[in-house]
């Protein structure tokens, strides 16, 4: 307890700050996965996409000196991985869950391979906006140093909600997800719709990865993402494929993930690893509570293999 003035308030404050900071990758991955799953496919490979995004963002930021180019590179990498997933899945009799597992292993392996020379150097990071200028307490200021990517993610959620509801593209994606026959009858290629939806999903997940390496924790190493991608995929399921609920769920997850470091900062070190596993335990608990064997989940796209 270095600063006695706010004492134990450090914990909720750090959890709040963490909710904003840690939730960003969850937010991007879950919004991306939301688009993909609404089109009737599940991409478990986003874990690999996240790590590849983190690696390529760090690499490009280091080489070009511009972190924003890194973010763009991460998005493009993610879109390419999405295209790979969709391309393999469009072959007959190929299971999308299995392809996701394969790309998860491939993505992490490739990122470790290409990222080997990037562990040492320091790349330019993304800037943060200081929303805590009014406060004198360093903890408050630290909690309110917010990254632009978080704000973009928060903005994407309602836009996506609106787009699913009212736009032509939203309707097409939902049609492909609810009934591929209907989409085909309307004269659209389901594979083509899903290819684009998976690519956009991968693009967002890649950007989520760039946040990991360019802002928080803000370096590239092989332990950067441990299951954040897969947690975000699970998060979409209990957010009922609703982008706004994805936003709230991501914030809750960020808070849970920040609990371990927050408690450590006030000197509670026992159970550190268990607190770090809080997001996974929370995911599992929420899935147990919200799922039911009797009925299919409300809001689930009918074509989704995971709910059948």
């Amino acid at each position: 307890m270095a600063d006695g003035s706010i004492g134990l308030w450090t914990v909720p404050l750090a959890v709040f700050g963490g909710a904003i900071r840690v939730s960003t990758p969850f937010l991007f991955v879950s919004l991306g996965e939301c688009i993909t799953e609404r089109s009737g496919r599940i991409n478990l490979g986003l874990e690999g996409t996240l790590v590849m995004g983190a690696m390529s963002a760090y690499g490009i930021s280091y080489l070009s000196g511009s972190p924003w180019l890194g973010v763009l590179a991460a998005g493009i990498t993610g879109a390419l991985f999405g295209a790979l997933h969709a391309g393999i899945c469009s072959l007959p009799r190929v299971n999308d869950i299995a392809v996701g597992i394969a790309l998860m292993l491939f993505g992490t392996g490739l990122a470790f391979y290409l990222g080997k020379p990037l562990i040492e150097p320091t790349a330019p990071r993304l800037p943060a906006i200081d929303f805590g200028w009014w406060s004198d307490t360093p903890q408050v200021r630290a909690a309110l140093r917010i990254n632009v990517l978080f704000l973009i993610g928060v903005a994407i959620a309602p836009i996506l909600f609106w787009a699913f509801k009212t736009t032509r593209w939203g309707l097409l994606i939902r049609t492909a997800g609810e009934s591929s026959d209907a989409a085909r009858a309307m004269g659209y290629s389901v594979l083509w719709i899903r290819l684009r939806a998976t690519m956009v999903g991968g693009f967002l997940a890649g950007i989520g990865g760039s946040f990991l390496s360019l802002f928080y924790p803000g370096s590239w190493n092989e332990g950067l993402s441990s299951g954040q991608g897969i947690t975000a995929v699970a998060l979409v399921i209990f957010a009922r494929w609703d982008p706004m609920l994805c936003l709230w769920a991501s914030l809750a997850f960020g808070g849970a993930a920040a609990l371990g470091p927050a408690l450590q900062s006030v000197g509670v070190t026992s159970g550190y690893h268990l607190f770090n596993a809080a997001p996974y335990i929370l995911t599992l608990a929420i899935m147990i509570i919200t799922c039911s064997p009797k009925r299919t989940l409300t809001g689930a796209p009918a074509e989704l293999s995971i709910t059948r």
Partner: protein
Amino acid sequence: MTADTADPDAAVGVAPAADAGFLQRYGATIEYILIPGAALVGALAVFGIFVALFGKNPLDLYFYMYQGAFGTWFSWQNTLTRAAPLILTALCTALPAQLGMVIIGGEGALLIGALSATSVALAMPWAPPLVVQAAMVCAGVIGGGLWITLSGALRQYRGVNETISSLLLVYIGLAVLNHLVEGLMRDPASLNKPSTREIGAANMIGSIPGTDVHWGLVFGLVAALASYILIYHTVFGFAARVAGGNIRAAKIVGLGVSKLILTICFLAGGAAGLAGMIEVAAVQGRTNANLAAGYGFTGILVAFLARHNPLAIIPVAILLGGISASGGLLQRRLGLPDASVLVLQGIIFVFVLASDALYGRIGFLKGKS
């Protein structure tokens, strides 16, 4: 001619020619070997191109891979030592696959199995080695088995997707292991690498006489053989395959689907837990974070490459064990990063899945040219 146009299905059903009888009978088996084999060759070719992009000679790559995996007696022993846990973790994916379930949490079951086995061994320092070893096997199997049964039960009773829950349990298992190894079970003497106390040299299961390969390989072979018999030559296995093919049909004929799921998941997790026990009792001698070496994840690839057939898992595990055994040589001779093995595994996985599209489409295997 008229028969063809009137009823093409019947025309296909007639055996076309005498020599095609062989293909008709064995065509499917040949396919099961030919297609994954072709996928493997394709993946190796792509990996060669990938390595060539970094200025390494692909021919050197293949040579050193062969050398490191199967070139010498030393590398064969290294390969077989790595194949042992792979056989067992592959069973963790392959057995539930008979029921149509995709379980990818073998790594978690391995860690929990290792932890349980170590705890039991440390709790009975007075017992003779054989008793300790038997207890470790039981603890490993039960620990890992219950861990995956949890995924199966959540799927059956709560409708939670087993793929996601089993993967989440990997991270939870790792957290539990780290928590205990750095806290309650920590050996105060282990400073840099927090570990439990050693189970003792007397309790190690040792090597097969005349080799450096530990007895874990025999455990793996026996488990694979037993799984094969269970799935293909018992009523229980038949019931499992029926339920995997059509769950509604299984319920209509009165199969206890819940019991099938829970039993299969227990056996699957038990196999991975046994792998953890072997890693402790034959290699590490204690539990620490080193155990999370990725055997559980490579096991998923082994299972898919073997098309979830327990017997086919044995050669595939040896092959993949060889690939990971050659990693060290690739690092030393070609200067490739250690992650190159992961990249190759990923490429193989992608190729194997994409090759699923080829089944039943190879013209000459259908008995008509």
